[in-house]
């Protein structure tokens, strides 16, 4: 097969995989939430039905061109960052555009999605959306710092800025980075709690308080785009964690087990937590996660 066609095909397969896995995880999280609350809960495929319903809505009002761009922006950056994540270790089938320094690039790219959402929300003129956006950006200032510190620690320790490089370092040394740089892992996991926006860090959507915040004015296909890019983005984040800290995955089953194990952390933590206020959330991230971030960097420099 032509190499370029092969790559395009790989990209499409990767996107479909990310969409299906992300949506199923969201559905599983609804099911697990229900079981924890002693309910039966919706079926696991409920999110697919929701998505299908949302695209088959007959009308979708918008308030201007930016509201259309916002979800599209989010979708593009989700798929864009997906393209830089090695899904499996050997990387033969799933496409991957990685290059030297892609970890730094990914750090930038992962911020763009929420920013696009913020732009889209600004156009709707709904005060709840505006509050949601400001909260989201402050929260991002909170969790980005420990997250970046964790990654910088990894970069210093292994002298590479590429994800594939880090994965090779793991397979060369035979241990996962969880064990060889534990403090970076702790900082990154604590930052992930904010990234996934489950409680106690669901201050952006805040269902009963902000009426779902930035997406308040989005119905129909806009909500569908948001929802599907959210699930793709969730897959991106989970796979990145697995690649960086758990030594990647050799086959799909292993990938699913590892990503789901990581996914359980923010979800189960969210089930037992009430919601923080914005300043409490930021203070949380600038407390222990930051401490572990510093510790990780010192550990990386010293060893």
């Amino acid at each position, binding site marked *: 097969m032509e190499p370029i066609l092969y790559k395009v095909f790989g990209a499409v397969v990767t996107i479909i995989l990310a969409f299906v896995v992300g949506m199923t995880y969201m559905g599983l999280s609804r099911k697990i939430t*229900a079981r924890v609350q002693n309910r039966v809960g*919706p079926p696991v495929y409920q999110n697919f039905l929701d998505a299908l319903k949302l695209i088959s809505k007959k009308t979708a009002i918008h308030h201007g061109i930016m509201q259309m761009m916002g979800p599209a922006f989010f979708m593009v950056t989700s798929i864009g960052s997906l393209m830089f994540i090695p899904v499996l270790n050997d990387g033969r089938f799933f496409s991957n555009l990685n290059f030297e320094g892609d970890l730094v690039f990914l750090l930038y790219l992962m911020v763009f999605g929420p920013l696009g959402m913020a732009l889209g929300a600004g156009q709707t003129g709904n005060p709840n959306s505006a509050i949601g956006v400001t909260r989201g950006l402050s929260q991002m200032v909170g969790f980005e710092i420990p997250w970046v510190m964790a990654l910088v620690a990894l970069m210093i320790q292994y002298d590479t800025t590429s994800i594939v490089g880090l994965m090779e370092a793991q397979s060369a040394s035979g241990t996962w980075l969880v064990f060889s740089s534990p403090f970076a892992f702790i900082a990154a996991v604590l930052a992930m709690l904010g990234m996934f926006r489950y409680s106690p860090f669901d201050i952006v959507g805040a269902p009963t308080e902000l009426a779902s915040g930035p997406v308040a004015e*989005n119905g129909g296909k806009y909500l569908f785009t948001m929802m599907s890019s959210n699930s793709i983005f969730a897959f991106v984040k989970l796979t990145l964690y697995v690649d960086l800290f758990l030594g990647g995955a050799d086959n799909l089953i292993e990938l699913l087990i590892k990503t789901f194990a990581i996914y359980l952390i923010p979800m189960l933590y969210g089930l037992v937590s009430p919601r923080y206020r914005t300043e409490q959330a930021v203070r949380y991230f600038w407390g222990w996660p930051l401490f572990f971030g510093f510790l990780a960097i010192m550990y990386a420099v010293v060893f």
Partner: protein
Amino acid sequence: MMNDKNSQKIVDIIQNYARLHSLFVLAYGTGCGAIEIPPTMTSRYDAERFGIRGAATPRQADVLLITGYLTTKTLKRVIRVYEQMQDPKYVIGFGSCTINGGMYWDSYNTIKVLDKYLPVDVYINGCMPRPEAVIAGFVKLQSLIREGKAEGAKLYKDNLEQYRENQKKVIPNWVMPEYNW
């Protein structure tokens, strides 16, 4: 054949299947009946197993649940909310008050028959209906959607003049944006 009649029928069946299993409910808690919504949604009766879940805003919602009596003041907000919802949308009238005024039948500032002002797809009677009745109402709405009979929004669009006339009769200071979708 993309626009063939039969293929349209298949698309309708699939879309209706998705619609009826994923109802985002905007519970407009107008009257006392709203107190029955929390038990319907939470652990004891668990409406989520039917795919029914709460929506935060009218834009995301499919079902407008009007729980009880409507004063003329709230009616205006309800109409506004209904018009912000996206097609296809359904209205469930909840409690006797939405059917014939219920125990507020001789009140000076509540409306008696909701159907005059908004197209109601399903009524749930009782004062107040228990969660079982609410779920039965939702199941009825689901079967209507399955048969393609829940056409309240279309009715509203077609008879907008008449609905407007009724609405303006009870709402004296009518300052509302036009219904345009």
